[in-house]
């Protein structure tokens, strides 16, 4: 039976134009720029110096702090620069630049395509190894995987939910991964189950990918505890909270985490990366990037080394079209437009979407007509028109009362607004401000408590 989440949701045009193109290995570029911050949290600390010779898979920057991730070299060659570069948003970030020489891999990495079935490590070893290998959530949020797998004391994980939804229009990298590397994904899920000590895993896949559902259902008969749950097509089903609701019927209370209802969610891409990290000793140095878009000559799914420039990836997929209006990192709903194309592909780049001039223009904004369509589609049950207005008027307390912090920034409200109002822009601004106020209050309370002691 098809399931889906209960509140809201929209049906944008699917446009999965690259669904039929199988994964291609992109040639190694002549130079890579590996950013130190490819994850949520503090940037990693570089441990190589300019002039050092590195191998593929060698650790080049160490995680700094609890929520941070290791960074490994994706190529072999010489470190030429460790400096600031302009990232996709136009702000400065630091990166390690490596000039490629050959393709020499670290000896510990198993490069064969043999499937390794046995899981030898204990749960705690698996988690620490995942941390070592620099794994982050591959869906785009880039939360360090080992942190997510460390269940806080006093809480119990009952389900592992695997996100194979890929609800963003255009993107097909997870779809291709499930079709071409289903076996590896399954073993990856088994490893994750071992790490979390759970015996139930549910793979949620939307029914616009019947081939993937069929393939994984067949495979799942070999693996005890793993079931495939076909889901009704609806955006944003790939949101953590929506997916848990769709798969288990459990709803996460406001301000709580998935673990509070006994679930941990991981992306299929992450499961594959876990398989490679644990069974093949391969750190997260390459990922499948869906390079797509209507004006693009050859929409493809490419296996790209981290640090390759976006421009080169687009060139490989047929070159930048004349009619190019915007290039977006991620999907059309939640992605961000690049300010320039000399930006490296990172661990979180799930897609590169090229839009033509007409598509990329925002329609003219009109007044709010109080139709409440945004309220109807909000998957978190919020009132987007109201909180965006409160945020525009800097009424932070009221915005917080109306649960602005629950917004998952899926963009359904923007999509559905008949007046084309930039609702999410204002809500995001409000979330930043309210978040800062809450953090300041928490810090103050902590200071006061410390002083009391």
């Amino acid at each position: 039976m098809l399931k889906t989440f209960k509140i809201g949701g929209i049906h944008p045009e699917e446009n999965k134009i690259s669904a039929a193109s199988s994964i291609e290995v992109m040639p190694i570029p002549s130079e890579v720029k590996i950013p130190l911050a490819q994850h949520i949290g503090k940037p990693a600390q570089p441990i190589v110096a300019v002039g050092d010779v590195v191998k593929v898979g060698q650790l080049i920057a160490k995680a700094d702090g609890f929520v941070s991730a290791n960074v490994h070299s994706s190529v072999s060659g010489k470190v030429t620069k460790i400096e600031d570069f302009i990232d996709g948003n136009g702000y400065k970030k630091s990166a390690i630049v490596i000039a490629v020489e050959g393709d020499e891999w670290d000896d510990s990495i198993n490069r064969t395509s043999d499937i390794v079935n046995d899981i030898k490590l204990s749960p705690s070893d698996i988690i620490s190894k995942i941390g070592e290998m620099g794994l982050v959530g591959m869906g785009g949020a880039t939360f360090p995987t080992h942190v997510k797998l460390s269940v806080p004391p006093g809480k119990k994980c009952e389900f592992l939910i695997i996100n194979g939804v890929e609800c963003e229009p255009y993107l097909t990298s997870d779809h291709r991964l499930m079709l071409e590397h289903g076996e590896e994904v399954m073993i990856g899920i088994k490893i994750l189950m071992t790490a979390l000590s759970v015996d139930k895993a549910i793979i949620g896949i939307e029914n616009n990918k019947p081939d993937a559902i069929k393939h994984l259902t067949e495979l799942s008969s070999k693996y005890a505890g793993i079931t495939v749950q076909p889901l009704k097509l609806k955006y944003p089903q790939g949101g953590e909270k929506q997916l848990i609701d769709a798969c288990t019927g459990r709803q996460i209370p406001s301000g709580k985490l998935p673990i509070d209802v006994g679930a941990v969610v991981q992306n299929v891409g992450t499961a594959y990366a876990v398989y490679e990290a644990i069974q093949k000793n391969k750190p997260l140095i390459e990922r499948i990037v869906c390079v797509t878009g209507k004006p693009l000559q050859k929409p493809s799914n490419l296996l790209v080394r981290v640090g390759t420039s976006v421009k080169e990836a687009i060139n490989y997929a047929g070159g930048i079209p004349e009619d190019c209006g915007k290039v977006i990192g991620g999907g059309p709903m939640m992605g961000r437009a690049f300010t320039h194309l000399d930006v490296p592909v990172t661990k979180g780049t799930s897609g590169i979407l090229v839009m033509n001039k007409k598509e990329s223009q925002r329609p003219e904004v009109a007044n709010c007509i109080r139709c409440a369509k945004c309220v109807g589609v909000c998957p978190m049950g919020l009132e987007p028109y109201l909180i965006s207005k409160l945020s525009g008027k800097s009424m932070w307390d009221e915005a917080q009362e109306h649960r602005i912090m629950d917004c998952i920034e899926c963009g359904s409200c923007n999509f559905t607004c008949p007046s084309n109002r930039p609702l999410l822009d204002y809500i995001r601004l409000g979330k930043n401000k309210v978040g800062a106020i809450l953090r300041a209050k928490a810090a103050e309370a902590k200071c006061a408590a410390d002083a009391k002691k």
Partner: protein
Amino acid sequence: MNSVLITIAILAILGCALAVILYFVSQKFKVYEDPRIAEVEALLPGANCGGCGFPGCHSLAEAMTKADDLSNIGCPGSSDAVKCQIAKILGKEVTASSPKIAVVRCNGTCAVRPKTLTYDGASSCAIAASHFSGDTGCSYGCLGFGDCVNVCKFDAIHVNKETGLVEVVEEKCVGCGACAKACPKGIIEIRNKGPKGRRLFVSCVNKDKGATAMKACKSACIGCGKCAKECSFEAITIENNVAYIDYNKCKLCRKCSAVCPTHAIHEVNFPPRPATSVAEKSDASSAKSVAESQKSE
């Protein structure tokens, strides 16, 4: 007729009785407020801008009445005459303060800082800044959507459509600092208005190296240090490739602005220079050579 008289009589008696009750109640529960608070408040602008650090003009008046001395407390928007008047009411001394004004430290007009991107999102600096660094090559400069204009209670800052920059109206600005807080790029600074309104400031905050800054904006401060060398009062410091003039040390000699190769140092309310000034010698070509020499370094 009779009923009318009775009604009038009853109302009159009732009125008198209630008046007596009210009188006694008001005597009994009287809250004493220093009458000077109202007098002081009447002299304040009444815009409740918050520039003084208090929630509004009434709170400031209260605090000023209670304060022992007025050196650290007061309305940034009041003139010295008003401050003297307030001090007189409160029977306190007031030291002559230097009035403040907001200055916009960005010189990047549309002409010198061409747009490299098109932004069609929400028209707000804070939102634009959260999306990206800006629609020009300079990631430090004015975005021009006017968040500062929206917060100004004195109608003292406006967007100039021709230049794409915001401009402060000298007569109206009280230096409350609301705009400086609202600016996500931090380019608005509250500085001394200066004697006769004369002041000098570096109208740029670009921290990029000279060549990069110059590429993005022809009138960016390239951090060449010519001004700092020229200054005899050690008022100019160069940090992160951008010059800063300390208004407490600056003696308004204008030597720095004369040598600035990119004209990034602005002079306000000065009389025109004599015809044979040094300013003419420094033109764009010298700016270029300085930027290039930095690049080669």
